[in-house]
């Protein structure tokens, strides 16, 4: 899952980035409010961790501006302002969750997973599509109840497909979801991962839509 982190404090920012990376997220880090707004508008991330007291532009303004342009990316506000009015203002400005510093890494990760899940209309903690089950918290995948071993990239790819089950995704969209900035992506990397996924799961689960992209069938029939 690709996460945008907007935090101006070097020490805290590097900590959150390292911690979330350990938790299996891909983190892009910006250090001021203007960059945060720019990235929010670009919409490449599944969720945003936003500090409010940012240089150049307050995080609250970045958030308001993005929401005014109908950017629906879930935003978790992370701040040291604990006044109730500040919290209310943050939630009203379009924040989906609010955490007061200091935060627990595991709680932050769990809240981000929940935000992403809800943003995709899922209420179950586990994602399900036909015979496949994915548990984002445990980082585990089952096919017909049997554990499937996937590499990190394969897991990320499957999660993108399952969050967007039934929707056709282009190769560019998949790359944006998977790779943080500055990552060199070979032209056939996504194809290779899809090939591997099909091999480890079941061939017909991920269909190729010629000239457009790929789709995970929501109603894939369980194994006979």
């Amino acid at each position, binding site marked *: 899952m690709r996460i945008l982190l907007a935090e101006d404090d070097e020490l*805290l920012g590097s900590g959150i980035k*390292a911690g979330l990376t350990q938790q299996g997220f891909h983190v892009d880090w910006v250090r001021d409010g203007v960059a945060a707004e720019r990235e929010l508008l670009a919409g490449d991330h599944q969720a945003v961790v936003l500090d409010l007291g940012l240089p150049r532009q307050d995080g609250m303004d970045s958030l308001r501006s993005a929401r005014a342009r109908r950017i629906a990316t879930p935003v978790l506000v992370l701040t040291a302002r604990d006044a109730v009015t500040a919290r209310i203002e943050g939630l009203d400005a379009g924040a989906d969750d609010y955490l007061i510093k200091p935060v627990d890494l595991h709680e932050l990760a769990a809240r981000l997973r929940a935000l992403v899940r809800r943003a995709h209309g899922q209420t179950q903690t586990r994602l399900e599509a036909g015979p496949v089950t994915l548990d984002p918290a445990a980082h585990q995948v089952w096919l017909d109840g049997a554990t499937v071993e996937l590499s990190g990239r394969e897991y990320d790819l499957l999660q993108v497909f399952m969050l967007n089950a039934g929707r056709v995704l282009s190769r560019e969209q998949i790359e944006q979801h998977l790779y943080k900035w500055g990552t060199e992506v070979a032209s056939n990397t996504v194809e290779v991962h899809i090939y591997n996924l099909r091999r480890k799961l079941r061939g017909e689960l991920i269909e190729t839509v010629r000239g457009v992209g790929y789709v995970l069938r929501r109603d894939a029939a369980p194994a006979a």
Partner: protein
Amino acid sequence: MSPSGAALPRSTLSLQARLLATVLGLVGLVWLAVAVATWYDTGHELDELLDAHLAQAASLLVTQRLDELEGDNFPPPPTLHKYQTRVAIQVWHEGRLVVRSTNAPEAPLGFGEAPGLRTSVIDGEAWRVLTTPGREPDVLIHVGELESARHDILLASLRSIAWPMLLALPLLALGIWWAVRGAVRPLRQLGQAVALRRPQALQPLSAHAVPPEVAPLVTALNGLFQRMADLLESERRFTADAAHELRTPIAAIRMQAQVAQGATREPERTQALAATLLGCDRAARLTEQLLQLARLEDEVARGGPVDPAGTVSADLTAAALGLMAELELQAQVRGQSLALLAPGPVHVPMPGALLQVLLRNLTDNALRYSPDGARVQLSLEGPAPGQVAALVVEDGGPGLPPEAMARLGERFFRVLGTGQTGSGLGWSIVQRLARLYGLSVSVDRSPALRGLRVTVIWTDTPPRRY
């Protein structure tokens, strides 16, 4: 501080009771004086009137011949008036009492032959006596009246004016009580309005619809409320800033510690632990700064001078040089340059540690809020008329948009107020130091660098304490 507590009157009587007692006491005294004056005046008039009556009675006797008066058949005069019997008559002929009215004593009412009015005491009773010779030269006539009778008349006449006076007094008291009650009602209402307030309610009291006498009190109270509100707001802001400044390094420490905990590779763990230690150092420095400020505030609050001997002094130039060496790297990362213009050592009456805090907050902020490649300049000045020293921190980006320039002070205040600096408590600290050391701090646009300019002046007047 004025000893206002000692100036309070010792009496705890209410205004109403005091006014009532004063007015009634004065009215009572005036009435008493009037009564005494009336007593003497009426007594005098009464004496003259009754003396005339005595003379009239005597003149009737003088016209009679002695033989007409003499004899036992002198009838008692008919009682025509209730006061009449008090008049007594004696007629003496050749030293012998020949005629006397029944109420007259046998002892002579008068001694000697001298005619005229006098007061004599017979058998312990005071008489007013008129003596006159009769028709025959050897006849002497005394007409007398008891002084006590005159006294009774005087008392009776005074009684008639005393009753209305005594009856009017309670009525007057009631009227005064009612009038005073109405007059002090605005005060009572003001008291109730203040008493019913919650401690947080510091909005001003309405100053219209109060009498001119009460208006100064309302104005003074409103001034107090305003000062309290300012103080509360400054405390609230300071607490919020302190919370933010302490929470961020603690959040970083916690996060880095968890990263170290969950690290699977040794370099990752080492890096996270190093960052944890860095965070601890930062939190420790912040805590130290906060404690320093709190101690200063405490000292000022207890009325103790910050620097009683005036011996505390630090070199502004040395402090600025030290800070620049520290911030050089941070500036280089963003291509910013730091410059210092100083005439040589500039001494300011301030502890070196706090001078560092002030310099760091201003400079760090200038670097932080100016764009990449900008220049930040510190200029120092020595003594000049009205100042001990001055510090000017200017930053210059390639021009600020006009709307940002218009909101410069506000932005500066807000951004610093939210404690964005990495090494201090932002604007609150600058403001607090300014207040403690009587510094004048102003913010405007830098004419040379086109960015923000903060001017700090150490004035040569001692800091105001409150």
